[in-house]
């Protein structure tokens, strides 16, 4: 663990990502209680440019709503959707991949064909269809993103398990009479965790983008403001009022960039042999 932090600290990109991410999470947690103005309330005249009034520092949108409040409240939705849908994808993908890799043969064939079934459908199209059928709400969005993003997890876990299950310590566990579930959970999965953590951190970034895209198309939760919804709502007036789209867009850019940097940093810290100059 100490070694891990040492590696992580040595990677400037990862540290920058971690700082941005911490700020974003802090805003999502305490922002709404510090700025209690509802982002839906009309507070000023429409199309007020940014940096003119100190009460609405980032200006107002077409209906006179506070853009700053929108960015603050949007952080909650975007990060929540990103984290929870990744969790859903892991809950589905890790066990499927582990079972396929460990048992092999027919089980592997069946599970992998099932996985391929999801991989052959363009993920964004499937997400749109799912949200449209289930009615847009925060739950259907999380479910849709989870459903389209678990196949890579299953694939990765399967590959890891395939290589780990032939290790001698796994064979030793079989020989000492351990049950299959014990071997998978205690012997194999802990050793397959590093690449999964790295993949998960990158998946959070993808999930944030997916949620933004869905909201942009008007498929977001109508009761919750999100960055994607703000960009979508402001796009028709982007020439007159650039700030309505640019500030939430920047928020998306920064948080996705931060997740990617953290993912890179984790990769270097958890797989030090790949990171250091090989010789």
């Amino acid at each position, binding site marked *: 663990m100490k070694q891990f932090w040492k590696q992580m600290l040595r990677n400037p990109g990862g540290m920058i990502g971690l700082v941005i991410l911490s700020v974003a999470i802090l805003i999502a947690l305490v922002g709404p209680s510090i700025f209690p103005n509802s982002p839906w309330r009309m507070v000023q005249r429409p199309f007020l440019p940014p940096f003119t009034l100190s009460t609405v520092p980032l200006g107002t949108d077409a209906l006179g709503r506070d853009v700053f409040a929108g960015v603050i409240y949007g952080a909650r939705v975007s990060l929540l959707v990103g984290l929870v849908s990744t969790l859903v994808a892991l809950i589905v993908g890790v066990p499927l991949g582990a079972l396929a890799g460990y048992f092999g043969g027919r089980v592997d064939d069946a599970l992998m064909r099932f996985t391929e079934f999801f991989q052959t459908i363009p993920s964004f199209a499937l997400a749109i269809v799912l949200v449209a059928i289930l009615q847009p709400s925060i739950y259907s969005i999380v479910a849709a993103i989870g459903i389209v993003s678990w196949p890579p997890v299953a694939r990765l876990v399967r590959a890891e398990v395939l290589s780990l299950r032939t290790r001698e*310590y796994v064979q*030793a566990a079989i*020989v*000492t009479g*351990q049950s299959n579930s014990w071997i998978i959970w205690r*012997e194999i999965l*802990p*050793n397959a965790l590093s690449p999964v953590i790295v993949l998960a951190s990158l998946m959070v970034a993808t999930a944030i983008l997916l949620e933004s895209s869905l909201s942009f198309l008007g498929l977001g939760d109508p009761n919750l403001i999100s960055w994607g919804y703000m960009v979508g709502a402001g796009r028709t007036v982007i020439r007159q009022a650039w700030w309505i789209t640019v500030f939430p867009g920047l928020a998306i850019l920064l948080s996705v960039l931060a997740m990617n940097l953290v993912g890179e940093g984790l990769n270097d810290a958890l797989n030090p042999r790949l990171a250091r100059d090989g010789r």
Partner: protein
Amino acid sequence: MTATPAVSIRNLKIALPEGAERLHAVNGISIDLIPGEIVCVVGESGSGKSMCAHALMGLLPDSVTTETGEILLEGKDLLKLDEDGWRDVRGRRIAMVFQEPMTALNPLMRIGEQMMEMFEAHGLLTPKARRARALALAREVGLPDPERIVRAYPHQLSGGQRQRAMIAMALALEPAVLVADEPTTALDVTTQAQILKLIRELQRRRNMAVMFITHDFGVVADIADRVVVLRHGQVVEEGSATEVLTRPQHAYTKALLAAVPSMHPPVRAPLDGRDKAVEVIGLDKTYVTSGGWFRPDRKVQAANEVSFAILKGETLGLVGESGSGKSSVARLVMRLIEADRGTVRIGDVDLTKLEGRALRAQRHRIQMIFQDPFASLNPRRKVGNIISDGPIAHGTEPKAAMQRARDLLGMVGLDAGAMERYPHEFSGGQRQRIGIARALALDPEIIVADEAVSALDVSVQAQVLALLEDLKARLGLSMLFITHDLRVAAQICDRIAVMQRGVIVELKPTAQLFASPEHPYTRELLAAVPGQSASPQAA
């Protein structure tokens, strides 16, 4: 001895990066390589012998730095060369043969092209002349059917043929010095004997200076003119081969030589009239690799009608070369892989008939010690858990299992503090002891040891063998001991079964097998064991 050296290493001192286990990889080493002479650099793992070889080729890793010393080749100091200067020297003046011929050859290039590359890299000869030279080289190193083999890819060659091809490449530009880094360690004994002979012949014919790195005193006895013994990066002894092998001066050399197992099996108490601990009847196993639509399936018979029995308290050795199916037999007996046919009977239980829970309940009766001490322990579990997991799975109280694990660690010669530590904090020999403790934790009747000491240095190997022998006698265990090393087998086995291509060709009491081998393959194996002729001490 008065001849001028082709290369001389003077007072070489290479510093390891901070935090390594010692300050210097090699500390003040001086070695002269004289034309027409083979110098064996011997030492255990971590002695710095490979670092010497790499320094000589300018292949040191970036993380180490050369502090002092010089490597003189015709009066020039190689350590002062830049990358361009090194390129001129490598291959042309000094060439190297690596340990693992499969990874040292480019798998996507034909053998002949790789040989021709040697000339191409130095801008020598025309393509046509290069081709002719490659063919001549293939012939010189004794590759069969040279015309065909220069057009083959590395995977189509056997291990020994690949090493011959590597040697041919090393010799292509007629270097004055050949550096061989454990060139026969990855090979079977019979192939090893051939490669050693080849290196010896070529070296005589071309009057080369050879630096031969090895850990095996048998090999030293067969090939060396002069021996340099390394320990912790320092030369502890240097002298002519006969001198060092028959009259070692330094205590460390003496200890190393004493640790080499003898080819003479000790007298063992007869075991007649005992009950059978395990009986194996007619095991068959064929691996089938699908060839696809247009090619027939590839079939490898790993076990063919393998039958043997191990008496209570007996050690049965299973020896053979790689690919003979000995490891497959171990895994068949353990039910780690399923047999196509055949029976494994422990007492009155037929292990091959059991499934699921019933099989798991019987597994504790037969336990395994694995080959690789670094891969056989889960890196994320503490040693105490690794040992006690098995008994807990079989229903022992966790507290009692932990206490038992503590006792077992004592029994294999580790202290109880090891319980709370992770496997990576231990050396290879210590890890193998932990593996043994894990196997013993379930109070087995039979232990299957699959190359259990092959990955260890000789001195550690001797300790682990002694431990196994002692535990076996104390606990009344039976053992199936799988090894490729006939010396080890001679020391520990009551009877030995010799395997070739999935078949047991000869099964006899150890002393009889060594005294009067019947099967031609057994005779071939026995003759190929290195270091039998040169000196009685090493043999």
